């Protein structure tokens, strides 16, 4: 059943025919005129540095080139080749995939759950709940690090104190090779589910109430209506969030950087952290650029695959 809102969109997508009837060059001119401010600013301040750093990835840009960047020497694909045999890079990649593989479903899952509860489950205090859940999202990592460091402190941290009350001797979370990454994942999920919640609330609100009425007339219970009405209608939103969250999580940086510095023993080292370390601590900007663009390719491929497999035929 198509709601009026949907049909409006399909008309637009079937080809804005009146627009297409414009004359060629004037059309182009108009288009470019609208695009101009963005394109100019973008070209100078985004595209240029991006291209520059891409070029850098083929050089051995380092310490001695800082004063004279143009003079850095070309080394072809040497940086990329070295990456292949760089054990630390592969560890970082593995860690990042671990983080994404667990973090994305958790973030989206919990976010959706809360969004459902807030949209259809309750009617009062909605704003308060929304603001509360979104709070971690708008707070800078500066403040969040302070709090979570304390929470995870093995002796006086809240989590271990609570565990002690239940008789469990809590571990030193961030210093434990196997538990550090789960702790980081928990922190990231905590931080980001507010954003997922907000987007899903919006998506849920867009689902016409008649659908739910129809399904409950048909005798569907709560869970069934969630499965057969909510999820399908929400599919584009889910896809959007999936892509955005994955892209964001593949670039994991802040949480491990602030909380563990990549340790213990590189258990929480992410690709972006490694890139930063190579570029800013060790001054190997060329190598760091290569890491960045390998990550870029990975991100692009995964996003593309997600679109492929999950996109509706609009």
């Amino acid at each position, binding site marked *: 059943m198509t709601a009026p809102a949907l049909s409006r969109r399909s008309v637009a997508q079937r080809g804005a025919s009146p627009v297409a009837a414009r004359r060629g060059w004037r059309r182009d001119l108009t288009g470019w005129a609208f695009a101009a401010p963005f394109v100019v600013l973008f070209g100078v301040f985004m595209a240029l540095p991006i291209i520059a750093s891409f070029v850098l990835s083929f050089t051995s840009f380092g*310490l001695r080139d*800082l004063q*004279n960047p143009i003079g850095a020497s070309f080394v072809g694909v040497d940086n990329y080749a070295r990456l292949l045999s760089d054990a630390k890079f592969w560890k970082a990649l593995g860690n990042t995939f671990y983080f994404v593989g667990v973090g994305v479903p958790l973030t989206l899952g919990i976010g959706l759950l809360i969004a459902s509860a807030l949209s259809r489950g309750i009617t009062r205090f909605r704003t308060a709940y929304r603001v509360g859940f979104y709070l971690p999202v708008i707070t*800078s990592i500066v403040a969040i690090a302070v709090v979570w460091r304390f929470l995870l402190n093995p002796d006086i941290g809240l989590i271990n104190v609570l565990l002690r009350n239940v008789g469990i001797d809590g571990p030193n979370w961030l210093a434990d090779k196997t538990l550090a990454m789960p702790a980081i994942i928990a922190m990231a999920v905590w931080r980001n589910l507010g954003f997922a919640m907000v987007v899903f609330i919006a998506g849920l609100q867009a689902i016409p109430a008649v659908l739910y009425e129809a399904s409950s007339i048909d005798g569907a219970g709560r869970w069934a209506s969630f499965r057969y009405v909510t999820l399908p209608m929400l599919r584009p939103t889910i896809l959007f969030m999936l892509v955005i969250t994955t892209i964001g999580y593949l670039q994991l940086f802040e*949480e491990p950087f602030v909380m563990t510095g990549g340790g213990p*023993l*590189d258990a929480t080292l992410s690709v972006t952290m490694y890139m930063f370390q190579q570029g800013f601590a060790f001054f*190997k900007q060329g190598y760091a650029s290569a890491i960045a663009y390998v990550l870029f390719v990975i991100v692009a491929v995964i996003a593309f695959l997600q679109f492929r497999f999950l996109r509706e035929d609009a």
Partner: protein
Amino acid sequence: MRFAPRAAALLAAFALTFGLTACGTNSGSNAPAGSSGTSGSSAAGGSPAAGGSGGTSANLTGELTVWAMGNEGTKLKTLADAFVKANPGVKVSVTPVDWGQAVAKLQTAIAGGTTPDVSQMGTDMMGQFGATGAFEPVPADFDKSQFFEGAWNTNIVNGAAVGVPWYVETRLLYYRKDIATKAGITSPPATWDDLKAMAKALQSKGGAKYGISLGTKNWQEYFPFLWSNGGDVVDASGKPALNSPQAVEALTFYDSFFKEGLTPKSVPEGFDITPAFVKGDYPMFFSGPWHLGLIKDAGGAGFDDKWAIAPMPKKTSATSFVGGSNIVVYKNSKNKDAAWAFVKFLSDPTTQALWYKTVTDLPAVQSAWQDPAVASDPNVKMFGDQLKDTKAQPATATWSELSSAINDILEKMTTGGIEPQAAADQMQQAAESIGVK
């Protein structure tokens, strides 16, 4: 996880981490902070060659931009004001920069050619930034004998001095006198064996949770043992010597504290030794002069006679680590006369004593130690004595990367993954592949 915000937040983390694990702390990790390599290749053509130690105060003019980090950054203005009073023609502006961001900031400044005239430079940053050629060599007529030799040597890059010591710090042993007495020990450990015995006693008879606090991945804590055993990062010919017999022996000794449970194998992030020392859980630790004030504050009234400091325990020598900061002038500076005059001003014994009074930074100039403000505190005097036998890391361009690798290997060893011999070999390998030039 958002877009525009991510870059910001990303880098906020970067800077904050450096800020919280600033140099000189006793925490385990040696964050890759601090060193900003400024490349100072030759200055823009036409600028006059750096004069000697600057002109006389009467004819100094122009502006001077100074960058300083951490505590020094916020307090340097007082000194700058004194300088301006003596040289009314000059205008000095001080920009404080947090240690954590200093690296990125200086890197970008060099790349963009926007370096200040003068800046503070951590002693462990000299090698990297010196190698970029951003620094102006120190004029030949600058009196180097006034400084502690160890401090002066941290400024030598490729055989030439490219900076001048500003303040120094070295490490001593802090220990709980009262717990030691309880354990039957009446004098501080003089040798390595004494140190080990004392740690054991403090833990068993003294009743402390641990015997000592040692960093799990901090080269600054391991190296004094390496040096005291006659070893060093590089040998006389400049080649890496990290798996020499002396190094292996030192590593074995260091590791034994972890193996025997005298110090924990893992420390929570952001661990603060001060309250733990006051509580008595960690009755010994190595640190610099800054902890004198911190412990006094944390211990409160009546705590003063419960603790003391002691020189490094001796093996073949009793060598400690020397750190601190130097002052550098940049090749790109447009006011080198005023710059060197400022440097000279900072090295003046009176100014050095005044600086000690302001931020309790230990003077790098030896004669400043005779000033009553400095000489009156017996604890400070002990630091001064230790300064006569100190070493620092080599001023190599690759230090940031190499020290990070060494820290990783130290962590593997102290957490029980590898044995000291293997650790030494791996360190040697790292030094050979990363290079010590």
